[in-house]
């Protein structure tokens, strides 16, 4: 038994993504949801499944419904979702878990039209990602006393090892970052849409924590993204071309330590990749315009390597010489990802993979995109990848 071809995405909607929005998060989410429902050719009354991950952007952020998070109850009330009975919310920050929950629910018949969204606010109080405790307990006691206590630092550790082990430099990464920014100019809701970027700008960017500079990290934003999922059968009656879910694979970290290693990324990523290609009957050569998670830039290298586009330690060289440009052999992250659009933890990747196989990516459309892929979070560990197809398998 397989999920392939049973469920499809038929609607996509975004609010603007801005560093500081004048609108409350609830209003932004209503906008994204209304757009997604309209894109699907449905009315709010037909939505009968709700799924979201109202994970907070940082420790200690407040969680007022409609301002800091947007729960299923909030949207059910404000949008008049009278048929909604199946719902879920997960605490994971990455979007993959909740999206997969909704895929499974639609496939199982638990709901017919599922609305899935991610809403994220940029806290106005406190420093994003700061650690202000005077004591460290639990796993943090093994790292905080040496000044290691924020997500960007723990993510910098495997990238530093990668660079030193394989000889990757910031000049190599500049190719990806600049290519990505060119795509951001073509995405209406992208936070970096109107800001040009040169290689020199990237190389001059200040460090947050080496080897990651400001421009290797996605910008925190206020905003929301929403999707409508339904069955393949129902999609035939709807106006938009469906993006079929061809299959997915998830990872799980089987230990609780705060330090995770480059070797674990490869090990978990290979396992995830093997499962993905086995379930879909596809391989990296079948995909066009893969959308790889880039909340921190080096994730893109590790997804390229573990999904099999190139071998471990080769991605930084693989992306050079025009290969990932729109007219290259592997146009990459045409949706501009998190680095171009803003920190959403996955929806940017999903939206663009869907748009590509729908043939609705506008100026970013890559010819022959029968299959595309959205990879979220990091390979292995908490990550997941979903393959979308333009037609039934």
């Amino acid at each position, binding site marked *: 038994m397989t999920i392939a071809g049973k469920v499809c995405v038929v609607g996509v909607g975004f609010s603007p993504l801005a560093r500081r929005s004048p609108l409350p998060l609830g209003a932004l989410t209503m906008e994204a949801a209304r757009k997604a429902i309209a894109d699907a050719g449905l009315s709010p009354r037909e939505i009968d499944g709700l799924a979201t991950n109202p994970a907070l952007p940082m420790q200690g952020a407040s969680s007022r419904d409609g301002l800091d998070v947007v729960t299923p109850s909030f949207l059910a009330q404000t949008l008049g979702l009278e048929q909604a009975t199946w719902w879920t919310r997960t605490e994971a920050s990455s979007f993959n878990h909740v999206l997969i929950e909704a895929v499974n629910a639609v496939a199982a018949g638990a709901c017919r039209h599922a609305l899935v969204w991610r809403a994220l606010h940029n806290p106005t109080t406190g*420093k994003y*990602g*700061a*650690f*202000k*405790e*005077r004591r460290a307990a639990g796993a943090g006691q*093994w*790292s*905080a*006393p*040496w*000044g*290691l*206590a*924020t997500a960007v*630092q723990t993510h*910098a*550790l*495997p990238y*530093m*090892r990668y660079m*030193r*082990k394989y000889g990757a430099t910031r000049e190599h990464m500049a190719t990806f970052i600049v290519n990505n920014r060119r795509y951001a100019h073509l995405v209406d809701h992208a936070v970096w849409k109107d800001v040009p970027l040169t290689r020199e700008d990237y190389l001059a960017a*200040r*460090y*947050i*924590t*080496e*080897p*990651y500079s400001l421009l290797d990290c996605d910008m925190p934003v206020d905003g929301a993204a929403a999707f409508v999922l339904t069955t393949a059968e129902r999609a035939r009656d709807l106006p938009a071309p469906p993006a079929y879910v061809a299959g997915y694979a998830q990872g799980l970290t089987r230990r609780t*330590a705060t*330090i995770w*290693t*480059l*070797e674990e990324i490869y090990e978990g990523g290979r396992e995830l990749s093997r499962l993905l290609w086995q379930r879909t009957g596809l391989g990296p050569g079948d995909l066009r315009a893969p959308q790889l998670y880039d909340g921190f830039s080096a994730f893109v290298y590790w997804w390229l390597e573990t999904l099999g586009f190139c071998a471990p330690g080769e991605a930084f060289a693989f992306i050079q010489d025009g290969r990932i440009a729109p007219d290259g052999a592997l146009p990459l992250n045409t949706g501009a990802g998190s680095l171009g659009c803003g920190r959403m933890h996955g929806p940017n990747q999903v939206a663009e993979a869907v748009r590509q196989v729908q043939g609705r990516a506008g100026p970013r459309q890559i010819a022959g995109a029968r299959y595309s892929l959205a990879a979220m979070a990091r390979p292995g560990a908490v990550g997941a990848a979903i393959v979308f197809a333009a037609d039934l398998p």
Partner: protein
Amino acid sequence: VSGRGAVYTWTVMHEPRVAGFEAAVPYATIVVELEESTAGSPVLLVGNLKEVPPDEIRLGEPVEVWFEDLNEELALPQFRRSAE
């Protein structure tokens, strides 16, 4: 454990985001792979390499433990380059 190992990886923090380290930036936090590690089962410890300028840290360089007294009750294991 022996307290001997090799630099596995590190990061150099430039932002004053971690309590107690606001004045220390930029500073390196290293991860040491202890020599008791076996294939597939690394034994990793976090520390600082205080006397080494961050841009001179090298992957795999041998280090050994020392204990930094923070006060009368608290000492932190730290690392320095091995003597040999």
